[in-house]
């Protein structure tokens, strides 16, 4: 009798699996909270869609490389994350399925998404991904430390000079390192834009050697070397900026909403002491926007099912994501109902933020990014002067961004 029951159960299960379309979705695991939310989104999808079965298969480690390797072997997932930073590279390699037809056929409300985010995933007039969510940079500060030294809190209206002044006051009153900074080019970009500089010239050569950009770079480096108010996370015993802030090693940090999720999980007692305001400005207000899309593999066997999944992920899925993981909604309709006060500065930044995507002749910026970061590292340790670095960049930039 028991055998018969088991047999029937197995038979039923087998039959139900056979009629289903398998869709594999993939991304990087993120923090445990984020991954938990994705898993529950997938569960909900599978409950409500009996004909499609979604499997979440995250790739830890270097996602982009793994994805490209899998794609070359023809085993890449049907749907995956694409970061603006390397979006164009994948689009040019014809790895992504254009979604325009699905959007028109289904009357998908693409206008509900922030247009700068949709543009970030558009190449040659075709949309290759629906923005999953986005992040901007803002200034975190630790109220307790500011209170302790009797310095006024940073505000969203602070200029660079207010910002520097507050850091110097903290330093003078005995705080060893008020600020944590990374030798990362993308973190310098808001300063370049704020100083009215530009990343690339009209003919796609580098714009960071021009005088406004140079001024911004100099200010960024002076925070480390001249005023000595900032250090790299590694020098503070932390692996990254968010950890340095969470540990209370610094009073200020410029980072994204992912840090908020992180400190809520890892350093809950610091959350109440945290204030978040927009980045300091100069001529312009500026911040970075990092966005990730759900894109469909051009080589997928189940394009229709994959599109169904993408629709769910960017609608109900996004709602769950925004509530659960504390990310920012890429849909305006969901963003307006997101009332978390800690996220205000990030949403405010979205109006003037620029995407982390540097246009190049070859579509590839990662090599130039490595080289510029390497120079920044040298500059942080005063191995070379700013002029030397800029000269080398000017000389070699085009060879870094062409194939």
């Amino acid at each position, binding site marked *: 009798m028991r055998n018969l029951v088991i047999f029937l159960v197995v038979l039923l299960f087998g039959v139900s699996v056979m009629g289903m379309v398998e869709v594999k979705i993939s991304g990087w695991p993120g923090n445990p909270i984020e991954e938990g939310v994705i898993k529950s989104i997938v569960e909900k999808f599978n409950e409500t869609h009996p004909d499609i079965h979604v499997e979440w298969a995250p790739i830890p480690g270097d996602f982009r490389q793994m994805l490209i*390797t899998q794609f070359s072997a023809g085993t890449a997932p049907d749907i995956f994350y694409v970061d603006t930073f390397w979006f164009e590279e994948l689009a040019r390699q014809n790895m992504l399925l254009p979604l325009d037809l699905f959007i028109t056929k289904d009357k998908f409300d693409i206008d509900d998404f922030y247009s700068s985010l949709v543009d970030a995933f558009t190449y040659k007039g075709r949309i290759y991904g629906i923005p999953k969510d986005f992040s901007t940079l803002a200034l975190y500060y630790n109220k307790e430390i500011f209170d302790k030294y009797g310095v006024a809190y940073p505000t969203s209206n602070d200029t660079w000079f207010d910002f520097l002044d507050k850091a110097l006051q903290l330093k003078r009153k005995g705080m060893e390192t008020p600020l944590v900074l990374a030798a990362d080019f993308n973190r310098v970009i808001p300063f370049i834009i704020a100083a009215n500089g530009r990343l690339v010239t009209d003919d796609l050569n580098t714009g960071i050697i021009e005088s406004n950009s140079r001024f911004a770079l100099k200010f960024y480096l002076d925070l480390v070397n001249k005023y000595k108010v900032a250090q790299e996370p590694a020098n503070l*015993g932390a692996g990254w900026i968010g950890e340095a802030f969470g540990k209370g090693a610094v009073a200020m940090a410029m980072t994204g909403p992912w840090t908020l999720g992180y400190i809520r999980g890892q350093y809950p007692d610091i959350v109440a002491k945290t204030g978040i305001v927009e980045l300091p400005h100069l001529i312009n207000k500026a911040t970075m926007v990092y966005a990730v899309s759900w894109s469909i593999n051009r080589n997928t066997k189940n394009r229709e099912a994959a599109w169904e999944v993408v629709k769910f992920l960017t609608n109900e899925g996004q709602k769950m994501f925004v509530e659960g993981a504390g990310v920012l909604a890429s849909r305006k309709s969901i963003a307006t109902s997101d009332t978390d006060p800690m996220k205000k500065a990030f949403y405010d930044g979205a109006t003037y933020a620029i995407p982390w995507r540097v246009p190049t002749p070859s579509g590839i910026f990662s090599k130039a990014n490595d*080289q510029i970061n390497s120079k920044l590292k040298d500059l942080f340790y005063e191995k070379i002067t700013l002029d030397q670095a800029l000269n080398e960049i000017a000389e070699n930039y085009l060879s870094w961004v062409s194939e």
Partner: protein
Amino acid sequence: MNLKSKTKEAIAGYIFALPIILSILIFTIYPVFAGLYYSFTNYQPTEVQKFRMRFVPEEAMMIHTGIFLNEGDVSHEDVAAVFDPVDFVLYDVGVKLNDKQIEAVRKYLDCEELIEDFLAGNLRKEMSVADFMKKYMKAKSNLFKSYVPDFIGLSNFKKMLKDEYFWISLKNAFVYSGVVVPVQTLLAVLLAVAANMKIRGRKFFKVIFFLPSISSSAAISMIFWLIYSKPGVLNRLLSYVGLQPVDWLNNPSTALGAIMVLNVWTTAGYFMITFLAGLQGIPRSIYEAAEIDGARFWTRFWRITFPLLRPQILFVSTMGIIGCMQVFDQIYFLIKNMRNITISYYIYKNAFEYHNMGYASAIAMVLFLIILVITSIQRKIVKEEAYF
């Protein structure tokens, strides 16, 4: 079958050896030659799938022309007016083409028939790019069967000459080997001599010395990251003698040295085992004779032990050079600065981050030649001989 017993035996032998022969052919011989071939091409792994990719021609036509069939009557001329064969194949079918293929598409793509079929609704079925090209190319459709990288001669090698980071990473690999190989060899000999002496707990020491080489290099890298980081253990110790803390791994002038120390520590124990085996092969009688003649410990070490270990020293230094020139994992885990990378890490970067598989293969070939030359010179200098 009437085979001779000798033939039978040979066949049986080959069958036994087949698994290893096959695995060497597939995983060693083939990659070496494939790498050699790719080093003269612009091979791009992402393009391997391009002609096998499946797509719906009707969708590609709609995206290309912006004309939707359900919107009413569309004439052949309407479609033809906005149809550009090269753009269509490049961006909407979505395959990268070389100049020859672009030329072929321009000349031979059967636009008439394609548009006819589109209007008749015959393009709804999903098909592979290769099948599509076969159907609609009037000629030269064999150019679109499968991906063949372009042969670009010596361009990859010429590019290397001008590549600043090729030279930096090559220099780093040489400096690294130049320091690590002698130090680790000498240290391994000393450890082996120590472990070979009759002292209490030598088994324990052997285990301790050998342990690093069987630990995961990721784990070791993490431990050393803790030791070397600015608020780490090493700086704490140095501060007791009044030295300023140094960020060992981030500072471009100390990073490579820090990795060298780490590597010597991990590999010395492994090579110690080789030397231990060598030491045990040296007859006691030689030492006894020397002792009777009044030779002290260090004299015995330099005059007897060291020369008699020559075959092992050759082996260890050869393996050491091969390993050091190819050092990758610790660099990958711990080094963030391009100034301190080594050549095999640069190969990896080119292959998997910059998508220059051809260029990466070319550098790999150069590295292979360098190692080949060094080790053959080494074999010439240190003759492999047995003394007893």
